[in-house]
């Protein structure tokens, strides 16, 4: 065929585009590639600058920044164990309350709910993610906190023998770890539920039908056919929720009481890594070591959420892979479960 093609100047076939005609194509390709590179470089640059601004604090306090409990701005001592523990306690409470509810809702919506009601109910759960965190804070301070106080009082009195839970009603403060954890539980509900729903929806219907055909009840079908398959994905979703809970700032700063001390039980006031930054940032602006300590808190937060997200993604992708393998290798369109959840509008945390 090569002989039949007419050539123009420059020994180029007429069917080929002129160098000028190919220019927009190249521009677009390299422009878009540059954009992708730029975004990666920007994140790396920001990260390095954050480390740079934290060095004063890292050099001064070393590891005791994380492991010693003495945070006192008046003496310029910043040992943030209370913040780290506050972060872990509030996120732990959030997971313990939020994950079972989210998974129950996901199972109900995918397996039990009448088909016609599914999209509407699913959308309502997703809408929780649309409420800004400052609004959660507002609601927590003026509605949930006051309404729950009698309950907390009763609980602390009744179970005062359990360490860390009941310290007696006298020790209850209006803002405390429990309220912060409860608000966080509500805030992570939509993402855990959305990812669980996506994962559960990918369980092969053959397995479910087989379980039912063998005489399993609905619940037995869920327990034996659905949950084992969906477990890695649900674990990943819960970890993503954990990442959200750890990084949440504004709602927590409003309801946790903001005391840089280590509370003795879950109804005492405290601090988290994120909330200390938001609260002390104004006064720290002119004190170099204080600002640096807050940047280090941000750095710890950043690294912590990175690690959790990496692990979570590994879980979710492993779940998706085993699911695909079970289906005989045919990749689901779009593949990634995370993506679907994000497309459902459940992205970002504050």
């Amino acid at each position, binding site marked *: 065929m090569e002989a039949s093609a007419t050539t123009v100047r420059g020994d180029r076939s007429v069917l080929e585009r002129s160098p000028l005609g190919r220019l927009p194509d190249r521009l677009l*390709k390299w422009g878009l590639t540059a954009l992708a590179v730029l*975004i990666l470089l920007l994140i790396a640059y920001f990260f390095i600058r954050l480390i740079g601004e934290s060095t004063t604090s890292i050099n001064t306090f070393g590891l005791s920044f994380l492991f010693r409990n003495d945070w006192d701005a008046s003496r310029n001592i910043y040992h943030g164990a209370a913040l780290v523990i506050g972060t872990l306690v509030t996120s732990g409470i959030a997971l313990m309350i939020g994950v079972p509810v989210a998974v129950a809702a996901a*199972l109900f919506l995918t397996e039990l709910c009448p088909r016609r009601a599914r999209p509407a109910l699913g959308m309502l759960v997703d809408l929780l993610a649309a409420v800004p965190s400052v609004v959660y804070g507002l*609601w927590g301070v003026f509605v949930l906190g006051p309404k729950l106080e009698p309950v907390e009082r009763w609980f602390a009195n009744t179970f005062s023998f359990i360490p860390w839970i009941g310290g007696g009603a006298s020790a209850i403060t209006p803002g405390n770890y429990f309220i912060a954890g409860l608000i966080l539980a509500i805030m992570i509900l939509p993402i855990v539920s959305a990812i669980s729903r996506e994962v559960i929806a990918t369980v092969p219907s053959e397995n479910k039908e087989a379980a039912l055909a063998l005489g399993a009840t609905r619940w*037995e079908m869920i327990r034996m056919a659905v949950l084992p398959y969906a477990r890695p994905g649900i674990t990943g979703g819960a970890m993503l929720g954990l990442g959200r809970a750890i990084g949440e700032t504004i709602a927590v700063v409003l309801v946790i009481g903001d005391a840089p001390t280590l509370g003795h039980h879950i109804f005492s006031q405290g601090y988290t890594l994120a909330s200390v930054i938001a609260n002390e940032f104004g006064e720290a602006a002119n004190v170099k070591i204080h600002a640096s300590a807050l940047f280090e808190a941000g750095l710890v937060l950043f690294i912590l959420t990175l690690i959790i997200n990496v692990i979570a993604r590994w879980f979710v992708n492993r779940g998706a892979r085993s699911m695909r393998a079970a289906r005989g290798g045919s990749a689901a369109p*779009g593949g990634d479960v995370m*993506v679907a959840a994000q497309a459902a509008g459940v992205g970002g945390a504050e």
Partner: protein
Amino acid sequence: MSSGGMSLSRLPEISARRRRTDKVMRASLLVGTVIALIPLVLIIYYLIYKGLGTWNKNFFTTDPNGNFFGNHGGIRSAIVGTLEIVCLATLIAVPAGIGVAVWLTEYGKQSWFASLVRYFVDVMTGVPSIVFGLFIYIVLVISHTGGSGFAAWKGALAVTLLMLPIVIRSAEVVLLLVPNNLREAALALGAPRWRVITRVVLPTSLSGLITGSLLAVARGMGETAPLLFTVSTAFVLTGNLNTQMNTLPVQIYNDIKSPEPSIVARAWGAALTLVALVLILNVIARLIARRSRLG
């Protein structure tokens, strides 16, 4: 079917215990779902109950004035400031995000570098927004870039960072849904790659792209933490993006901490406004998604 010799009814009955477990578990899953829906109902109820009363003409047409006694002013500058910052962030994040998504689906595909980009974009979605605020604070605010410390455009950049991963990943999903036949048909007709992208791929997935972008905008609109460190706050209405600016989330945050009940009431009114804006964007996004030709 009872007339059949080998009737199904010969199967052993499900025991009472299994039946009971089934009922109990199904009921508890239902209860879990109801519990999951309660917070949304309660929050919306209280927003309307406490916020609607503050809504009047004055509320939307005056700026907050910082007075503790007497007339505190409304939320006009906060609404306008939020819209300005979100518009600027959208103008950067949506084209850039869709650009990266196009690169991922049309050029990068399964290459190692595309996987790397995809991975980091995923990781970015999990980064707390306060960290984005700190990034911009360190890089642009401390250094007084542009002649001022806190500035609206810096806040817009922080919100952009936050919106980018959401736009990229949601756009990639819809771009992947465009059938390859369409691309191949256009290429076979002699269209260059860029025309295939601008005339075939993007228009086909338009509604999906709009949905993803609107959801990202809704997300960016309600963020407080990044704005605290980058825009700070102000009272007056301004169109100058190089100064401090009032925004809805930050005004709500500041009003919550006031001991004066009528200022707290303004926070409820502002919160109702903010949630209304965000929910409207969400509902529009979902309606567009439902009408989409793809998926």
